[in-house]
């Protein structure tokens, strides 16, 4: 807060002493115009999604950008076409289980790598960073063969297991742990806490912002996951919202009014989580980059 107040104060002083300058004014205007254009382009599709859900598919096709009266019909069509409670439950269950397990396993590892250093573990960490560059496409086929030989195809475990130990999240937690004050740990040791108690009672509550940012990243990734669930979930009653709504669009005459209504529902959870945790998200990112 203080570092923001300072430049403001100087700028006010500057403005008083300096006379009006034209190039500066033009540059500022261009800057605001470009930022407004960027904001417009970023937000317009959201507006379009909401407007589209109130229009007929034909009107969406001809680019009608005003609110229509079809919202309830689109909603009714959507609930009649897909088993909405089931697909959203499937998505939510996979995203929740995935997020909790990923955060648990990966934050423990990130903490462990940073707090207990040894030469051998540093080598493992370097190897992990190299593996980070291996694309999922390269793992997809062997993973699928492996999951089928475990007889796990069509289970939540098949979707969630391969992503739980996320190198990216481990790396993120290790970076963030560098900011965890060593005095807190020393004090806890003097008080007789063991290493696991320190992690659960001191580290976890202190690193709330880091966890919040990780929740946003991991929850979004799990909720939006498409390719891997497409491969391992083969029974209709297991499909997630992402898979089902995506299959609606690939028909020859997709009913866009109904589909856009569905996409609003599919976007809401990530939007809500983002806005709930937004402040902590920025703090968490700052902690990891510093």
């Amino acid at each position, binding site marked *: 807060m203080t570092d923001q107040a300072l*430049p403001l104060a100087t700028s006010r002083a500057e403005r008083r002493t300096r006379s009006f300058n034209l190039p500066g004014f033009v540059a500022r205007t261009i800057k605001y115009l470009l930022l407004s254009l960027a904001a417009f382009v970023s937000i317009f599709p959201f507006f379009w999604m909401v407007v589209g859900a109130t229009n007929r598919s034909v009107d969406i096709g001809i680019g009608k950008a005003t609110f229509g009266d079809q919202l309830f019909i689109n909603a009714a069509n959507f609930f009649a076409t897909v088993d909405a409670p089931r697909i959203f439950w499937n998505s939510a269950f996979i995203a929740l289980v995935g997020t909790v397990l990923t955060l648990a396993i990966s934050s423990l590892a990130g903490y462990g790598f940073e707090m207990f*250093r040894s030469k051998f573990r540093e080598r493992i960490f370097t190897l992990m960073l190299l593996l980070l560059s291996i694309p999922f496409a390269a793992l*997809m086929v062997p993973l699928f063969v492996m999951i089928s030989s475990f007889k796990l195809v069509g289970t939540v475990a098949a979707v969630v297991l391969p992503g739980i130990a996320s190198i990216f999240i481990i790396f993120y937690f290790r970076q963030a742990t560098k900011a965890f004050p060593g005095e807190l740990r020393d004090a806890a040791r003097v008080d007789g806490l063991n290493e696991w108690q320190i992690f659960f009672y001191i580290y976890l509550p202190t690193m709330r912002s880091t966890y919040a940012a990780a929740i946003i990243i991991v929850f979004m990734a799990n909720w939006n996951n498409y390719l891997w669930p497409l491969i391992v979930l083969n029974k209709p009653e297991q499909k997630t919202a992402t898979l089902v709504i995506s299959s609606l669009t690939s028909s020859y005459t997709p009913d866009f009014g109904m589909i856009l209504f569905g996409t609003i529902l599919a976007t809401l959870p*990530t939007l809500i989580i983002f806005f709930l945790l937004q402040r902590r998200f920025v703090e968490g990112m700052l902690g990891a980059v510093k």
Partner: protein
Amino acid sequence: MANARLGRTEQITGWTFIAPALVLLGIFMLYPILWSLWMSFQVGKGMNFNFGGFANIVRLTKDPVFIRALVNTLTFLVVQVPIMIMLALLAAVALNDPKLRFRGFFRTAIFLPCVTSLIAYSTLFKSMFATDGIVNKMLMAVWIIQEPIHWLQDPFWAKILIIIAITWRWTGYNMVFYLAALQNVDRSIYEAARIDGASGWQQFWQITVPMLKPVILFTTIISTIGTLQLFDEVNNITQGGPSDSTLTLSLYIYNLTFKFMPSFGYSATVSWVIVLLVAVLSFLQFVIARDRSK
């Protein structure tokens, strides 16, 4: 230092913290990697395969669909990543100005696209970019184009559409990394540059870009990996069409494995092409970044 202080029990505690992750990574990452490397030398259909030596690599060079997918993927990479990184940097620099009004609004607005679900955004783009759709209508209204563009039917414009879609989705994500890194840049450097008469543009190239180089490198590599693995967007917006003009390597691997008669060996070979590309490009990016710093 820290190593010397760690006692025997602490060593064991250290392993217990990372053991669950290591076991999972071994099973779901290391093993599949080795398996796929071995598979790429196998030929055959389904689960019947035998050693084929370099047969798959020879097949790659003669496979026109693979070559098209490779060229498409590289085209997306070369065009999209620099545009997105540049836009994200400019947005971050503009938003880092403490005098800027509506900062919070602009920041949230530009970040918002990467909160949408993949499926929402591909559906939205598919409907907005229909030939009679809203985007053509708006472009014609402001006289940028006279005739509607066939975004989904024309091979050239379909590629542009995919590039627009990815840029829309990921620019804000990269911007957040730059914004976070800019917090660590001391403002007094800019004050000094301004007194020396450096223009905003000069400050951007001579202070901001060099200071942010590690983050730019990081995001460029992450974006390169992401673009080389491009699948979701092309599968949902264009299905790789029209006539394979947006077919990517990942989509081709998927088709080879799960749509046609599965040939695991050959698709594993194609996936190692991606691994090689990622390795070579990351290496090049590191070298270029090091040269610039001299």
